[in-house]
């Protein structure tokens, strides 16, 4: 036991020695893993980051974006912690779902410290949508039906059971006074795009997702958004009511950010943190965020660590209250 510990210590020391020797870190063929199929929120993070870091000259090689879907991001998380733990050139898209799943223990045995959370750079609010020809005009009408029979309204979401897309309608229903919110009917699709077809084809009555994923279909008139789960109405879409003003005091904010392997060198961690701060300072990037209906939301360094820790704590508390974890 002692021997192995000394051995591990020696290896750690030698690794540290190597890393301090390489003074200036430069990204070489960097990669961003989007733990989902193309088209979702995580994919957006990687592609936007890859584009701006390269355009701004922060990285010299173009950044490769790899889609690694599965297990609601768990496949990518396990891949990073178990196979790429010392990769200095790897960043991974993260969001509220990442911390929510760590909190609920969906990534088997995962903890916050298994990876290094780099930064958040934006947040957007969840929304509940129905088909344009749906009988529900307001969130209250839908909630009344759910209160009468929780199984009467099928709600599609782009990720697995118990995910944040699932939690959001549960929180609304709890606020409406439903005793056992786990009785609600949630239909899990692989990705926001597929969930949208579920709604459009009439398989389900409602869709729980992020506002940006619904934008195109809202503009084309295919869907109606019953409520946005933000503190106040969006600047660009003043017609969409918030859940709060309809009497359900629930905020569903989904942050967007990145993590990287915990075993990366300190230089690399500092490099990527600076890189994202450079990106956030760029007006073009802020324009892209706004076009995607996202608000700026920045956390770096220790702030980021504390923010994620807080987020995990919140979800744990919430999940216990709702009764989906013990």
């Amino acid at each position, binding site marked *: 036991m002692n021997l192995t510990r000394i051995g591990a210590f020696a290896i750690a020391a030698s690794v540290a020695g190597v890393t301090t020797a390489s003074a200036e870190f430069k990204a070489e063929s960097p990669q961003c893993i989007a733990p989902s199929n193309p088209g979702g929120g995580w*994919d957006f993070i990687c592609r936007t980051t890859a584009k701006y870091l390269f355009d701004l000259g922060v990285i010299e090689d173009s950044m490769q974006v790899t889609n690694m879907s599965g297990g609601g991001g*768990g496949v990518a998380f*396990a891949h990073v912690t178990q196979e790429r733990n010392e990769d200095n050139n790897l960043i991974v898209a993260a969001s509220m779902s990442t911390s929510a799943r760590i909190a609920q223990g969906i990534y088997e045995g995962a903890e916050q410290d298994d990876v290094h959370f780099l930064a958040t750079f934006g947040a957007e609010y969840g929304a509940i949508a129905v088909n344009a020809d749906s009988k529900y005009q307001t969130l209250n009408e839908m909630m009344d039906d759910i209160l009468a029979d929780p199984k009467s309204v099928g709600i599609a979401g782009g990720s*697995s059971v118990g995910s944040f897309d699932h939690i959001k309608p549960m929180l609304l229903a709890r606020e409406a006074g439903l005793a056992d919110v786990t009785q609600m009917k949630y239909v899990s699709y*692989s990705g926001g795009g597929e969930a*949208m*077809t579920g709604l459009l084809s009439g398989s389900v009555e409602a869709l729980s997702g992020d506002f940006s994923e619904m934008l195109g279909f809202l503009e084309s008139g295919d869907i109606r958004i019953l409520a946005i789960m933000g503190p106040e109405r969006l600047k660009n879409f003043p017609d969409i009511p918030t859940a709060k003003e309809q009497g359900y005091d629930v905020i569903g904010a989904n942050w967007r950010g990145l993590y990287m392997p915990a075993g990366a060198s300190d230089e690399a961690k500092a490099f990527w943190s600076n890189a994202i701060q450079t990106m956030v300072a760029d007006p073009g990037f802020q324009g892209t965020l706004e076009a995607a209906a996202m608000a700026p939301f920045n956390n770096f360094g220790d702030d980021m660590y504390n923010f994620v820790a807080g987020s995990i704590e919140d979800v744990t508390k919430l999940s216990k209250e709702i009764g989906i974890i013990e």
Partner: protein
Amino acid sequence: METLSLLAGGFALAFTAQNLMLALIGCFIGTIVGALPGLGPSNGVAILIPIAFSLGLGPIPSLILLCSVYYGALYGSRISAILLNIPGDDAAMMTCLDGHPMAQKGMPGQALTLSAIASFVGAFIATWGLVFLAPQLVKIALLFGPAEYFVLYVMAFATLGGIMSNNQGKALFAVAVGLAIAMVGSDSQTGSQRFTFGQIYLFDGVSFLVAVVGLFALSEVFYFLEKHHSGTRGDAKQMKIGKLMPKWSTIKSCIPTMGRTTVIGFICGVLPGSGATLGSFLSYSLEKATVDRDGKSFGTGDPRGVVAPEVGNNAAAGGSLVPMLSLGIPGSGTTAILLALLLQLNITPGPLLFSKNPDIVWSLIASLFIANVMLLVMNVPLVGIFTRVLLVPTRIMMPIVAMISVVGVYSLSGSTVDVMTMVGFGLLGWLFRKLDVPIVPIILGILLGNEMEVNLRRAMTISDGEWSILVGSPLAIILWAIAITGFLLPVILGRRVKKRMAAELNETNAASDT
């Protein structure tokens, strides 16, 4: 008419010397990538995306290059299927069934030319379908809820038994093996690990490329090794190349087949999640059920058996662009990568794409037409060169192709475990061939298993556990009817054919006795 002028606008944007040159390069690279087992269209497109970016190409030239690669790979995958009995990608599996026997009958050139024409017809009509029907077709895609998807997959597996083997039990066994392998990995609905036994390698599931290369390419090598050992030299039989152009009467006899399978393939393409493999598969099996009821000529080098899957496969490729462009949902691996490319170019596919970015959409469609014509023009004369491959003795060609396949998969994943898994699949494939257990159903099971399960689970969630949802719509009932007919027909007909054959045998015996 407005559509046509928009299309003309697209052509105007696409027709520049640089773009045509890119299309030519793309078609060529695509054909090569497609012909190499282990690298399929999705890999071809994925490999070229960084190249397109580093060349600094704009959106339209990039799309032209990548669409040419996409269509080129679909053309190319049939070459190794016909010449070597090793499909260039999963969608070309069905082309092996009649393409290779046709080549062995001394008509490799004709099989290649015919399949090139078939590919052209399928892709050409499908692209017109994309031009005129995209908005209406989205409605077809939306007719399919989870229950209907589930029944569609049941139908695919039910019609499989009759065409794959003399022994339906073995075909179903192979389906079960494929589905069993598909279950390995993280469960997409709950995130639980299934059959991974704590091995991180298995968390993503077993890649179907690994299975394709192992079951087809490596098992072919093992098969040859065994034969060689028992005395027949690998190069004992030199294949005849024969005529390159099929007779006009042959082509004419395939025209009805082309018509039917274009529709089947196209619809399969439009449904997200099924794609080219299901398209080529259903085209083949339904065509066999239509024109070859006795089950005598399909599988022995029937030209219609070559045409059907190639038309279906290429029509499905065109069809799969419909949900990708108009809903932003990729229907296959390749369209997923094309979608990623569009996003990278700051174009968000979705219901508004046709009105927001008409120049992109129409030049994309124009580039599909250009690639398609270019491929036909390029492929027919190239048949002569491709068939020269057969002049290289099998004892040299076989290991080269097998190694290229293995390296192809390795180069994408970088995992040596993949290499060893392929060897395992190779042995399994050899054993299955010996025991007359068909291999195609295994691949189909791996490819479709997860979608099948997930849709069943969604359907059951929606219905609160009522199994009746599976027969809850007219569409579902029609699909069930096809599935049941497709399953039972070969059983009944098979018995009749066997009886008739036995009767004929008795007659000839009786005749020889006298």
